[in-house]
């Protein structure tokens, strides 16, 4: 198999529009087939007198991105909300309102998304004049009030952020009538770490160690997107072997995450045998990764310029052999789950995400594909080895828990096949190259993106004189969390854990 020499798409060229024209411009792009990828705000009040507001789009089959850029003046930090034409940005805009104080006029939800209740009003932590270690005294901010149904017989059930099991911190407010859920409101961002703030001002070579820790579940995807963005800015070509190995790492990550997610589902329905079998297989995969790449969860594997550690030929052959052995076990697990009548009765027809809603809200990853959307950045905007591999995009129509399970099961099959091909023909040569001259003082904007196990995610990186000026990480979980609010109402409250696990979204990707 041949992988063409990595020619990374050059940095995106931005089209400047008036803030008032953002909506029509975004609508026109969408009408042309462009799909929303990410957005980012940067505080340029010192140099430009205002804020920079970027929205990036991808187009099927095109290597370049389209970026809409608007500037918002510092003295009137507001702009017309894009939500009416681009509902997918409704969390992005709330986040920017909290962190930059940039007000989206006409946004349907005026509540805070990220900042806690006792954070003082008017203090926006991502603005440059707020130090990263600012610890304001608790003040009366805006109290978060859950939204929900009201009326006789409607009960409000608050769940979390502290749970009975070892789960990340998230608060869910259910409005229920008997056993039926009428509405669910989420409050995540409970343990926001400010990674995007802390990396500002650091040389790009140091920042990767922080950025990769955003999330342990899709760290290879984060590392690859970060590295791609940096490489775009400094004009850095990576060798074919590195291209190959990055693809291997991304597919390994997809495999272990899908195994994890598939194993979590039967646990949500009390089917412990399936959960334990899945957990065993996942552990085998993690140990394979520890042996081949030096870390169970793939931390420290991908860095700008290539991969951190080579995979020697014997190790690659051993990995390929072990994966072949694992493949049978995974197929048996899928068979056992999909053939269990009691479990499939729970999964079928439960937590349906309608296709039109998934599309409007910008669903990504297996959750989008299970609702019939062929949304996969590996095909939409193929980078790394995916141009030559052309992986099969697995879709299902039903949009329920069972469909999301089936998509993951079949995607594991695809991942095994891709890994088999990739490991069979690793190109020779170095696995990393030295940075081009001047890389340490490079300036510019780069956007790296790839299909993580949970869907497309992007890193928007701005360097100034070789230091990070802005980094915005938009992961698949950030994109997909709001889908839960659309998939849960109408179901039984006891089915919520199962539905939640069928999306299996990451809290840490919000708390970055």
């Amino acid at each position, binding site marked *: 198999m041949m992988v063409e020499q990595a020619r990374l798409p050059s940095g995106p060229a931005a089209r400047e529009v008036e803030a008032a024209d953002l909506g029509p411009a975004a609508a026109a792009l969408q009408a042309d087939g462009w799909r929303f990828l990410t957005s980012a705000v940067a505080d340029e009040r010192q140099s430009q007198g205002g804020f920079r507001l970027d929205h990036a789009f991808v187009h099927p089959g095109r290597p370049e991105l389209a970026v809409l850029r608007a500037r918002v003046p510092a003295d009137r930090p507001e702009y017309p909300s894009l939500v009416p034409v681009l509902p997918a940005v409704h969390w992005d805009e709330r986040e920017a309102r909290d962190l930059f104080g940039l007000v989206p006029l006409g946004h349907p939800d005026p509540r805070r998304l990220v900042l806690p209740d006792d954070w003082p009003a008017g203090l926006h932590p991502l603005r440059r004049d707020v130090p990263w270690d600012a610890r304001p005294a608790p003040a009366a901010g805006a109290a978060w009030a859950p939204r929900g149904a009201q009326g006789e017989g409607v*009960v*409000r*059930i*608050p*769940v979390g952020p502290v*749970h*009975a*099991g070892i789960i990340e911190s998230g608060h869910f407010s*259910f409005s229920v009538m*008997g*056993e039926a859920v009428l509405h669910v409101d989420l409050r995540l961002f409970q343990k926001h770490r400010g990674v995007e703030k802390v990396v500002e001002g650091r040389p790009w070579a140091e920042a990767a160690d922080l950025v990769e820790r955003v999330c342990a579940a899709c760290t290879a995807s984060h590392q690859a997107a970060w590295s791609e963005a940096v490489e775009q800015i400094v004009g850095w070509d990576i060798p074919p072997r590195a291209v190959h190995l990055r693809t291997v790492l991304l597919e390994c990550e997809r495999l272990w995450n899908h195994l994890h997610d598939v194993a979590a589902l*039967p646990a*949500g*329905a*009390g*089917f*412990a*045998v*399936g959960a*334990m*079998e899945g957990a*065993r297989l996942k552990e085998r995969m993690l140990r394979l990764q520890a042996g081949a790449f030096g870390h169970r969860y793939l931390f420290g594997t991908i860095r700008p310029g290539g991969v951190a550690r080579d995979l020697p030929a014997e190790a690659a052959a051993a990995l390929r052999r072990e994966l072949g052995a694992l493949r049978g076990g995974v197929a048996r697990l899928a068979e056992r789950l999909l053939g*269990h009548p*009691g*479990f499939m*009765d*729970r999964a079928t027809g*439960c937590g349906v995400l309608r296709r039109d809603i998934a599309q409007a809200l910008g669903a990504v990853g297996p959750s989008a594909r299970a609702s019939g959307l062929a949304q996969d950045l590996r095909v939409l905007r193929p980078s790394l080895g995916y141009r030559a591999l052309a992986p099969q995009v697995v879709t299902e129509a039903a949009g329920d828990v069972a469909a999301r399970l089936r998509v993951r099961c079949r995607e594991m099959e695809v991942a095994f096949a891709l890994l088999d091909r990739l490991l069979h023909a690793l190109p020779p040569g170095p696995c990393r190259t030295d940075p081009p001259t001047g890389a340490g003082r490079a300036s510019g904007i780069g956007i790296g993106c790839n299909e993580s196990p949970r869907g497309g995610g992007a890193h928007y990186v701005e360097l100034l004189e070789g230091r990070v000026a802005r980094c915005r990480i938009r992961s698949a979980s950030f994109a997909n969390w709001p889908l839960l609010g659309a998939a849960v109402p109408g179901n*039984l*409250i*006891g*089915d*919520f*854990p199962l539905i939640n696990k069928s999306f299996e979204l990451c809290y840490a990707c919000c708390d970055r």
Partner: protein
Amino acid sequence: MSALAAAAQLLVLLLVAPLAQGLIQRAKAALQGRRGPGVLQPYFTLAKLWRRQDVRPEAAGPVFAAAPTAALACVAAGALALPMLWRPAPLGWAGDFVVVVGLLALQRFVLTLAGLDAGTPFGGLGSSREGTLGALVEPALFALALPWMVRAGGTAWPALMAASAAAAPAGVARFLGLAAGLIVALAESGRLPVDNPDTHLELTMIHEAIALEYAGPQLAVLTLGQMGKQLLIVALEADLLLPWRPGGPALQALSALALWAGLSLGLAVAETLSAKLRFFRLPAYLGAAAALSSAAAVLQAWGVR
């Protein structure tokens, strides 16, 4: 003698119940390919809880405080009205099958009130579900005795067991009864596919949602009561469906204990094979138990042995 037997029976229920629980947990772990905790773990858990601080919700009232003891008392009284180890039952003169079923219903009622009295959403959720479950499982439990009632013409324990013993050991009615008994035992002991005793998912809980606000000694009493109820159900079904016991008192007791262990292992196997049912499927599931028992009763009435 009778007082001694009563005390022994009560003691056995309370002492053996955690062991039965440990046995089930151990068997489930083995069936899932895990090592799991030892069979004695429930004793350690109870001892740990007993030493812990008692914490109660601010909104909780006297019902919440009294419920664990009251529920345990219901189970203990049921144990005395049931010929668990020896025949007749220590309090056999005071109660028959209906009394045992009634005491179990009372225990459920007490816990339902406790869930409401905790004043938290999960308690209310658990109570609502427990109430629904009770309305479904109690008829099914009562129907377990129907096949033998139609032959015995009453609900007294000696007559019921004699009728069951007189029927063909491997007759159709017995198999139907055993199938119904399995469903009822899984439901009454809060096991899959009805409830999941091992879950940490608050939103899916039934019994555990009621227990969620309890801590320390109160939780220990509540847990012991639940384990006792599980053993009581097993013993009740052993008496109804597999009533034969060999000669002397020692052998009788030993054979009863062995039978309970066997039935408990059966529960573990059945639970391992199941996923939890969607809550609104429960009427059909428990209705099936009642239907199986009723079919067995019809066969018995017709004289099919």
